[in-house]
């Protein structure tokens, strides 16, 4: 039988009693993974404000799609994939919407980090990567996720993740002037 599937239409549904468990699960998911999501968005977008917005929007996306999460053990990857998608969408806005990207760190960053050249350099170097390269670098070397989980988040194979990491690291090395010094053992075992 042909199904003319779900049709979004007039009105919407308040979460009912049956959703109480869903709300608790959603809250648990956020409490467990919000910081990782924030760090992913911050390093991807380069702006605290943009990162907070992206994660909030992604969180609400996740709330809407919570019923699609079938494997609780995979919830971190599932949530971070939604966050990554939000970050991609944010980056694809007009440049004047992403001007804070790679701007100088905000005062909130703290004098110690803001004043260091390498902090600025790594932000700029990340900004020169493609979105997909930046994503795998952040997931691997900042959030310390295993290759399999990165593959799940990015919707690609582990081999593709390793290849993307390799290219990203070579480009980072050129930008940072650290030839052969970054992450070689991770991607070229």
């Amino acid at each position, binding site marked *: 039988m*042909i199904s003319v599937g779900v049709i*979004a239409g007039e009105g919407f549904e308040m979460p009912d009693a049956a959703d109480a468990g869903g709300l608790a699960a959603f809250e648990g998911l956020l409490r467990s993974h919000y910081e990782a999501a924030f760090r992913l968005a911050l390093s991807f977008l380069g702006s605290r404000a943009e990162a907070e917005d992206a994660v909030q*929007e992604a969180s609400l996306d996740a709330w809407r799609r919570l019923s699609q999460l*079938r494997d609780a053990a995979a919830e971190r990857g599932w949530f971070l994939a939604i966050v990554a998608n939000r970050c991609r*969408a944010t980056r694809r806005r007009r440049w004047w919407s992403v001007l804070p990207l790679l701007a100088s760190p905000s005062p909130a960053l703290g004098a110690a980090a803001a004043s260091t050249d390498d902090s600025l350099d790594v932000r700029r170097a990340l900004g020169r990567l493609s979105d997909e390269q930046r994503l795998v670098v952040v997931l691997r070397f900042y959030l310390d996720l295993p290759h399999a989980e990165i593959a*799940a988040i990015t919707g690609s194979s582990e081999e593709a993740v390793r290849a993307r990491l390799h290219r990203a690291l070579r480009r980072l090395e050129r930008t*940072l*002037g650290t030839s052969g010094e970054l992450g070689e053992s991770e991607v070229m075992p």
Partner: protein
Amino acid sequence: MNGRDHELRRLLHRAFDGEQPRPGVVDDIVQKARTSALPRPTSRRLRAAPLAGALVIPLAAAGVAVAIGLTHHRGTGGNVANPPHVSPTPSLVNPSPLPAPAHYIPWNPLPPGSDAGATPTPLPVPPGTPPCRANQLEGAQVGFFGATGNDDLPIVLRNRSASACMLMGYADLRIYDASGRLLAQAVGTTHRGTFFDSSSTGAPVLLQPGTPALQSSDGTHGLGFPGQATLNVQWVDCSQPQAHSAALDLPSAGGRLVVPFDRAATGGGACGPTPEPAPTLGRGPFNPIAPPEVVYSLVAEIAAPGQVRAGTAVTYYVTLVNNGPNAYGFDPCPAFDEGLAGVKPVKPGPTLLELNCAPARAALTGGVLAAGASLTFEMRIDIPRTLHGPQRLSWNLLGTADLPTADASIKVLPAA
């Protein structure tokens, strides 16, 4: 992990660990989820989720050959594509593909970022609007934007006077260090245009009074309002001299505007033994800031065959209906993900693709999906050979705010 791995991790943590999540942010989001009547996917209905896209940009329909017939329904006078036709129940043994609707945008698996979109629509400049004078304006250098190895150090201008004025074409640009030494210049008809400019000819840009002041503690407040102007600045010098200010000599003898420009030239690091490109300074024409993003209310309807065969590529159709009052121009072109949610994940993550926006815009009157109109896109998904039984096909449009999402139940039959 070896020392080299550790070095990158150290750099990343040093760059970003200073930022902490705002206290209470999780509580705030949960509260939004609890109180704002957010939709939960159900078996039949979803909320009409508004989509905040970007500008509504009329594009010329000519030049893109896409067969699409537009009719009117929903009583709002919008242009609509004919909805997908629903076929009879297919055979269990040999499931039938879904009949194609009469009109649709064909499948084209584009990666995100494929669509260049359109240029922002500038505010109309009323006849007689005078050229801007330097003493009417305030300027700020607004960060760093990089793409494909090019670096932009854009400048934003606002009108701080009480009356509107206009800018058109190019300013002469000179960059100085803190001692007033000239570091670089782009004047006259030379060094016009940058990597970031889509056009080398500048249209008139209206600068309206009343936009917020540009300066703030974080250096970004007040930017990006309609009525402001921007110009791209591309300054390459491998010695990376540190600038202090930029002087803009405005066209039409508008005088000199000095803008703080606390930036170093870009150059890919210090000058090395290999020949470096000659120092250059380029500037773009004045460009308008885009109007604010419009909130759209798009709804997704999905039509999929009820039964599919494992190991095949299944075609289905997604119709986007514009339920809001604002015409939607598919610009920027939204991405979508599609997936199958069965007893276990069949893909390790979402598949992110971009809508086939260019033919969509070309097919629509004025390049936009009018209020009340709908447009059908052909979709395709590979069904893994190992999958069987009841599954749910989900489709989600990704954009900048609330997003339409839809799903359909399908039954996967064993591979032939």
